[in-house]
């Protein structure tokens, strides 16, 4: 049609050439950079830069570091990227004494493991060793402790699991400052009340109460003892309705009279 659209082939060829060159250059740069990136990834993965250098543990009081390391199955030198933190958490949580765990990666080479242990709310005496009782009511049968048992009361004569369960629930609810006052708790069921317990307190009083609403009634313990004269020791009976204190002397006379009558 018009002359404008007619361009001679000589005019077009050099431009085409130029264009093609540009394209080839760009492609080369792209492939080269891809190649180098892959190489550097391989180098990084092979070098110690990608290896775990340190594992930080926190929150474990009763469980040793080794045990957790063993459970986590992570060792120094492992590949940082190969650690699947969900998997590790699942493995660690299988430990009966661990309540929760959080595994976090800290780039480039650190793994943080924060565990939360179940509180030990007591120690149950079985045969000649002490088994820790956890706040969830479980008794640890696997690792009896020999010595470090001053941090929770001793539970004695709890022959039926049910009552031990109830007891541990109540103990978990009681504030720590009051749990610290209890030395020993003995299950002492009577015919009328299978929930009856007897306690020896660190401050020398003997307490009789029941497992039911234990956590509520025992909260009043400090205010009860505050009213007593510290020199006179005896048995405090605490119930939901109030507390009664019987000094030992009078109880001795009472009991003597009773035994005298029965014999």
């Amino acid at each position, binding site marked *: 049609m018009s002359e404008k659209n007619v361009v001679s082939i000589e005019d077009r060829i050099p431009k085409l050439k130029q264009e093609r060159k540009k394209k080839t250059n760009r492609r080369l740069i792209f492939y080269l950079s891809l190649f180098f990136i892959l190489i550097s990834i391989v180098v990084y993965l092979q070098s110690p830069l990608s290896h775990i250098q340190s594992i930080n543990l926190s929150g474990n009081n009763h469980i040793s570091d080794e045990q957790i390391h063993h459970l986590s199955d992570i060792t120094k030198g492992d590949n940082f990227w190969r650690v699947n933190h969900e998997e590790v958490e699942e493995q660690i949580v299988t430990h009966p004494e661990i309540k929760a765990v959080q595994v976090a990666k800290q780039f480039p080479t650190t793994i943080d493991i924060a565990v939360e242990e179940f509180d030990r709310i007591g120690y149950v*005496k079985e045969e000649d060793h002490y088994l820790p009782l956890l706040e969830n009511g479980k008794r640890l049968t696997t690792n009896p402790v020999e010595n470090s048992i001053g941090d929770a009361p*001793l539970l*004695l004569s709890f022959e039926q699991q049910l009552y031990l369960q109830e007891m541990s629930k109540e103990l978990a609810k009681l504030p720590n400052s009051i749990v610290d*006052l209890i*030395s020993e708790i003995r299950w002492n069921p009577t015919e009328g009340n299978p929930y009856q317990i007897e306690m020896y307190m660190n401050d020398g009083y003997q307490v009789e109460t029941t497992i039911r609403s234990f956590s509520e009634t025992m909260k*009043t313990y400090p205010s009860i*003892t505050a009213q007593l004269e510290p020199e006179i020791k005896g048995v405090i009976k605490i119930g939901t309705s109030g507390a009664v204190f019987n000094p030992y002397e009078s*109880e001795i006379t009472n009991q003597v009279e009773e035994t005298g009558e029965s014999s």
Partner: protein
Amino acid sequence: MRKNKATQIMSIVLMLSFVAIFLILSGRFLYIQTTGEVAGVSLQEWADKTRTNQYSLPAERGRILDRNEMSLVQDRPTYKVYAIVDETHTGINKEPLYVQDARQTAEELAPLLEMEPSDVLETIDKGKSEGRFQVEFGSDGKNLTQDIKEQIEELELPGINFEKDIQRYYPNGMFASHVLGLVDKLDGEQVGLTGVEQMMNDVLAGESGHISYKRDKYNAKLLQPEEIVKEAKDGNDVYLTIDQKIQTLLEDAMSEVNEQYEPERITAAVMDPKTGEVLAMSSRPSYDPNQLGTVENWYNDVISTPFEPGSTMKIFTLAAAIEEGEYNPTEYFQSGKYQISEGAAIHDWDNKGWGSITFREGIQRSSNVAAALLAYDKVGPEKFYEYLQAFEFDQPTGIDLPGEDIGKIMYNYKSEKITTSYGQGTTVTPIQQMKALTAVANNGEMLQPYVIKAIKDPNTDQVVEEKSPNVVGNPISAETAKKVRDELGTVVSSENGTGRNYKLDDYSVAGKTGTAQIPDRENPQPYMTGHGNYEYSFLGMAPKDDPQLMMYVSVKRPELSVHEVGSEPVSFIFKNVMGNSLHYLNINPDMEAQQTINTYEMPEILDKSVTDVKTELEDKGLRVTVIGNGDQLQGANVKAGEELLPNERIFLLTANPVMPDLSGWSVRDVLKFSETIDLDISVHGSGYAVSQSISQGKNIQKQDKLTVEFTSPNAELEEEDPPEQEME
């Protein structure tokens, strides 16, 4: 010819009669056309009516909700069941639409209607024999719930049909019944009769609409139906200040007291003193609005029944005296008797009195003489009357509920002026006392009580109207209010206080008890006598220093056994509702502070002087054992910052540890001790230590072997049960 003539006449007659008939008919047509009326009926209107379908569109009545949007009253569909017994009633394909097998229908239907199958059968058979089209089943077949209706439908009984109706439904049953009120059906429309239903009837009812369109003979719409739709405007929802949880607590406590003591009347209300919002209000006798049987009492006693309140009134006497500067809590007066005039005297409830006591004790013991002295001799009767007016005992509270009544201040004679000071003679309603008490609870500002919090459009959820607290007076100063609360606090906390029974475990209470004498209508003796023949009440608030809730409870003539005191049912309701409500509202307990006051934080001790730390800790009531004889501390069994309670045993470690005397120590203390030193311990027995294998004063080192024997403090007496616990 003759014949011709006759023919002619006949044809004229015939023609005339035709003309006449024609004129009559055309005249009638003309008349109808011009007037458009036949026998006084406008044809235009009649035509429109016959070819127009018109229905009314009823508006849905609004709900009543509590402050947390829990529904308290709502509409609910109910169903009436009926059975078609006409055997000609069939469907298009001749399938039966009537009861075919009467016996089977009766047997399947009866249990769902809670009827006897024989009765159902009888009803159906009777309908059949009388040739009726359908039968109904009386009250048992009415007011069926959606659930029952669906169950019946599942039986697929032919001829059993339902008619839908709308009923007001109260999901909580007997629950603030007098506050919520009732509705009645008038011309198919629900109209509020009492309570909020009546008060807010216009808001709740909404406007019903209608729809109309032109139709043909077969009820199909015409091509130009000229449809007119006026949509119904549903009623708005009314939100109350009532809190469903607190109201439920109150209802439960009242029902329990009602059952146990069978009193003549109980009234109670809970209010937020900072806003005047009523959180709960109820009275007994009450009723379940879903099942109206015989209703003993239609009155909302809290607002409509004035009576002589008794000693709760002394709160305001006290407030007036403090405001006037006439109250000296440590001043003494002679209790027991107050001489009004020669030959007339009033007495304390304990006629002997308590000798010469202070005014504070007088208030604690609820002395009438103290109140009389304060009101009449100190403040003065005129001034005191001004205070009664300032507390607005002479006017209604203006609460937004229908049927409020007010009492009467009896103030003509000297004796009346005196008895008013302790709440006899003069009558007031509970809500008047609550309103006056807001001034005490809310630092002098008296608030109007109210029940309706907001009105919302249920479709758009927009607030149409909202109420806010309304300060209606300032009878006393903030300072006086605080002093009154402190004095009232001692009524509850003091050994002598008449309010001893109203103590809460976790919160401090300020309040005043009342034991009002009840006028006896039949007896010439002005007041009833005898155990339980009083109206026992309590007006109080908690926590004392910053009241979050206030409450009034009164129980009239409970049936008490000889050893029960009248305050027992009242305090049961008060403690239950107040304590639980405060906890529910997450109010910080102010009483526990006294218990934890004793705890003590372990200080930093490292490298400090042994004697300094020891005396410091012993001052706090701790039992300190120093292990070793060094001067500088090297550690302890407790970390710094840990909480300690008195009587706990603390070990302070110094250089050169030596064995302490363990006798009397508990097992756990000994274990702690051995852990602190790291000894190899073995425990024998349980209870408290009696002997130790390493004697006192010997040097000890890590891993030394220590055996300690323990025994129960009364072991000698428990020989059959020797606590043999051994561990190696």
